[in-house]
């Protein structure tokens, strides 16, 4: 460890090696939780978004209901229902499900995944619906099947339109993950709450954690700008 950091750590009460390790553990949990829920949410959202654009109400209806349910209720309530609700189901403690849901991580992951999948479904659906009809007609004129059209034309084109809105959802998810600490998960916010209640120094404990969230957001914003540049490079003017 560089000398100036060691010196800084020696001069204050709160940022000792053990609290830094607690924050680090919290950072790892937050990143795992947010990353996994976003990846799983996106994987679920793509087929759901395609179903959502179907004209058949039997396909479109259930997906509409799902997105309405999860966008219409607060994430905190969903987390409470999944975490405390599952434990109240008679006999669940004797099934293999309990191995998964006994801890706090997987209930939180489930709640976050279902929530972000609902929002992402609607973002992708909007992008699919906005596909210019000329592109679809051209694809049909080439004799492309529905699946090929979806894979080669509609989804890539939708990805370009959806990426900005999706970057908001990613950042929103990072910040929403702060509520995981209410179900005993020690994420970044949970670590800050533990340290705050040990030292009674709200400014130090929470401002530090706010800075970590800001740094994470900065990384996300940067990554999405790169992604947007890549996806939309065909729209940039050709430089002379």
């Amino acid at each position: 460890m560089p000398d100036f950091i060691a010196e800084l750590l020696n001069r204050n009460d709160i940022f000792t090696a053990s609290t830094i390790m607690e924050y680090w553990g919290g950072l790892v949990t937050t990143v795992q939780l947010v990353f996994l829920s976003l990846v799983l949410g996106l994987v679920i959202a793509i087929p759901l978004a395609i179903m959502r654009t179907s004209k058949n109400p039997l396909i479109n209806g259930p997906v509409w209901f799902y997105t309405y349910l999860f966008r219409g209720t607060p994430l905190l309530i969903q987390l409470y229902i999944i975490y405390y609700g599952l434990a109240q189901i008679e006999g669940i403690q004797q099934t293999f499900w309990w191995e998964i849901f006994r801890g706090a991580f997987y209930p939180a992951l489930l709640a976050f995944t279902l929530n972000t999948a609902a929002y992402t479904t609607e973002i992708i659906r909007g992008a699919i619906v906005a596909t210019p009809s000329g592109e679809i007609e051209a694809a049909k004129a080439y004799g492309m099947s529905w699946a090929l059209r979806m894979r080669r034309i509609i989804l890539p084109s939708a990805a370009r339109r959806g990426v900005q809105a999706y970057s908001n959802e990613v950042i929103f998810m990072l910040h929403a993950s702060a509520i995981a600490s209410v179900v005993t998960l020690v994420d970044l916010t949970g670590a800050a709450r533990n340290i705050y209640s040990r030292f009674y120094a709200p400014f130090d404990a929470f401002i530090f954690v706010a800075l970590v969230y800001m740094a994470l957001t900065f990384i996300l914003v940067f990554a999405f700008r790169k992604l947007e540049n890549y996806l939309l490079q065909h729209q940039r003017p050709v430089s002379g």
Partner: protein
Amino acid sequence: MRKLIVAASVALAMMAGVAHAQERNLRIAFDVPYEPFEYKDENGDLTGFEVELAEAMCEEMNANCEFVIQAWDGMIPGLLARKFDLIMSSMSITPERAEQVLFSEPYYNTPGGWFAPEDFNTDVTDMEAMEGMTVGVQRGTTMDTFVTEEMGGVVSIKRYTTADDMVLDLEGQRLDVVFVDYPVGEQTVLSKEGFKEVGEPVKLGQGVGVAMRKRDKELAEEVNDALATLKENGTYDTIMEKYFAYDVKM
């Protein structure tokens, strides 16, 4: 100009002197519900051991007291921000808290108790047997500090903001055992079917004191005098016997 300032400060000093002679106003903060220390009865009136003790103390100090409800998380910040003058809400005296606030002499101490489902039969003091168990505590309490320091690497510790959430997870079998302030465990865990007390209650820490701002040294002296009088003249014992079957006096 200087004369004006002198005159103004003399006037202020006189006003302060007058205010001192009159009945003083004190605001005391409680976090409810925390039975049997402070809670609301059927009529919605604030009552409990600490509330009655506070009433007796105010009478003894000849002070005009107003009771304020404040959630636990904002207790010390609220005191420092002058939202109230005293905390009498089961705040255990700890060195970390003493950095921020001034404590009176302790006025009660309850032990921490271990509570678990009926089928739990592990010795909670046997570290080898406890290995891998999940223990629930309330975040930032002396019970939390005890478990963190004594069993930190052995058991997995889950920290809760409220006792209700913790009891819910004990019922849902997410926790093997909880370590909680004895009267709270008695009220919340033992009142339910299928739970029992395990092991021996552990006396923890230096007891509970009245918390005040560090600069209010005179107030602290008055509080200490009033509490000492109540402990001697039997008022304290009368209130204690109303709420506890065991001795919490300190």
